């Protein structure tokens, strides 16, 4: 690979110091059982159907048209929206507005350092966010223009996709982009018969690359439009039976409805603040 001439670079080969921990402390891959303590309590003390507290705020980036910051305990995501603005390349002209999304994990946001360039996983996440948002935005109202969503994960402690979708939705709404409905999102980790709401990074890792073979394990993330009661996107990683999948989706919808109040409250507060500023 050619070295990056636009950045300062260190040596070509680097290793994470945590790869050399004593073998007794950490095995490759975390066992699922590690995440669950007795009495069905999770390591962070939640019960399986409990969401983490959501901190949500709109209008955090002064330069952007709309922006949002969300915290699910240690998962921290910032999002800003620019546009509608002129399409850069003439070939991209269309009568329907276009929505783009850029997603990036900051280099220090995960346990292992990430690269500066966007990798496949991040591109995939961007597409998933875009698919969740696209059906809700009234794109026909923005001919010949584009709306850009930029999402950055400052720290990833699980459920980054649902946090990113929530942040994008609040950012779009605060930018005054016309939408049919809010887009809410929630994740559920399936592990055997257990449904873990809003999984942490530890739980996600345990389920996705577990060394033990589990009959049914996976993570469902669902984007839900609460007022019209419709689903805009579902993404699932893993292997479960159809019934379990349906069941997990039901859990997701219930959780989305719990988050609805938080998102509403956040947007109302933002609108009030903005009016107060204008009134001055």
């Amino acid at each position, binding site marked *: 690979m050619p070295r*990056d001439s*636009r*950045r*300062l*670079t*260190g*040596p070509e*080969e*680097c*290793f*994470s*110091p*945590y*790869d*050399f*921990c*004593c073998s007794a*402390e950490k095995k490759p891959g975390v066992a699922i059982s590690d995440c669950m303590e007795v009495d069905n309590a999770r390591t962070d003390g939640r019960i399986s159907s409990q969401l983490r507290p959501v901190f949500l705020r709109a209008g*955090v*980036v*002064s*330069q*952007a048209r709309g922006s949002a910051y969300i915290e699910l305990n*240690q998962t*921290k995501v*910032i*999002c*800003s929206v*620019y546009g509608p*603005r002129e399409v850069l390349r003439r070939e991209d002209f269309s009568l329907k507005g276009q929505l783009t999304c*850029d997603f*990036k994990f*900051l*280099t*220090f*946001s*995960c*346990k292992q*350092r990430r690269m*500066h360039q966007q990798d496949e996983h991040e591109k995939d996440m961007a597409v998933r966010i875009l698919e969740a948002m696209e059906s809700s935005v009234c794109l026909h109202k923005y001919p010949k223009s584009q709306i*850009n969503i*930029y*999402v*950055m994960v*400052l*720290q*990833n*402690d699980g459920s980054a996709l649902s946090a990113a979708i929530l942040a994008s939705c609040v950012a779009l709404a605060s930018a005054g982009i016309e939408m049919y409905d809010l887009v809410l999102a929630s994740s559920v980790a399936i592990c055997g018969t257990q449904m873990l709401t809003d999984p942490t990074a530890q739980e996600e890792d345990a389920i996705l690359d577990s060394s033990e073979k589990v009959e049914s394990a996976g993570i469902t993330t669902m984007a839900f439009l609460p007022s019209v009661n419709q689903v805009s996107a579902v993404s699932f990683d893993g292997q479960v039976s159809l019934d379990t999948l349906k069941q997990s989706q039901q859990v997701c919808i219930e959780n989305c409805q719990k988050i609805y109040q938080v998102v509403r409250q956040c947007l109302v507060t933002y609108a009030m603040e903005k009016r107060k500023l204008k009134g001055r």
Partner: protein
Amino acid sequence: MAEEIRIVQPKEYYKRFLEKDVRPDNRELAEFRPVVLNIGCVTTAEGSALIKIGNTTVICGVKAELAKPDADQPKDGFIVPNVELPPLCSSNFRPGPPGEQAQVLSQTMADVIADSQCLLSESLCICPGKLVWVLHIDLVCLDYDGNVMDACMVALVSALRNTVLPKVTVDEETGDIQTDPTTRVPLQVTCCPVATTFIVFDNKLLLVDPTREEESMATGAVTIVTEGDNLCSIYKPGGTPLTENQIDNCIERAFTHGREVCRLIEDTLLSVDR
């Protein structure tokens, strides 16, 4: 009406304010914006800090990795600072590799670390010739409202001061590497360089801590980096020529500001338990 003049005739708009020695955001010419500092906000990084100067926001994370040292400098670790100005922080930036401004900022950060000697690359040595630390220091601007240089510098120093590394040992005979994540060693950061930026408005007035709008109208800029009673850098890349007295004046003010910022960093560090 005022807002329309601001967009159509920004220079005129500013002149009206500056005639009365006040800026549109109610600051005096030599007044800094309020600073909010949050140290240790990202726990996946070995060290981190988030700074807000007015609206300008910069987050800095330090990620430590291991590598073999260069053959000609067997004792020197690697310090790799990089500044990112992503499209998220302002509409002036486009997605893709870092632009000229980001590259200049990255280089300036590297230069300041070298000039001030706040972190010596020798202090990152684990086993000479075999293993050294690589510190990836990534600074990301989250909100670009001017004076990113000063913000980056505070974030950089705070994050370095916050950095703790796990204890790593190399077995003399076998060459095996052992990490003990329970024992944590802080970095040896010896000093606290602080940058203070001034811009020249309309070839004569000096404004401190400029906003984005002020920067776009500036005819020149001076950044002075102080460290205690010493100067680390005077960086005036072209622009309106200034007299010696004007620059001396800037240096004096930079020293006062430097001490204030150092105190802020110390106070914030004390309140962080880690």
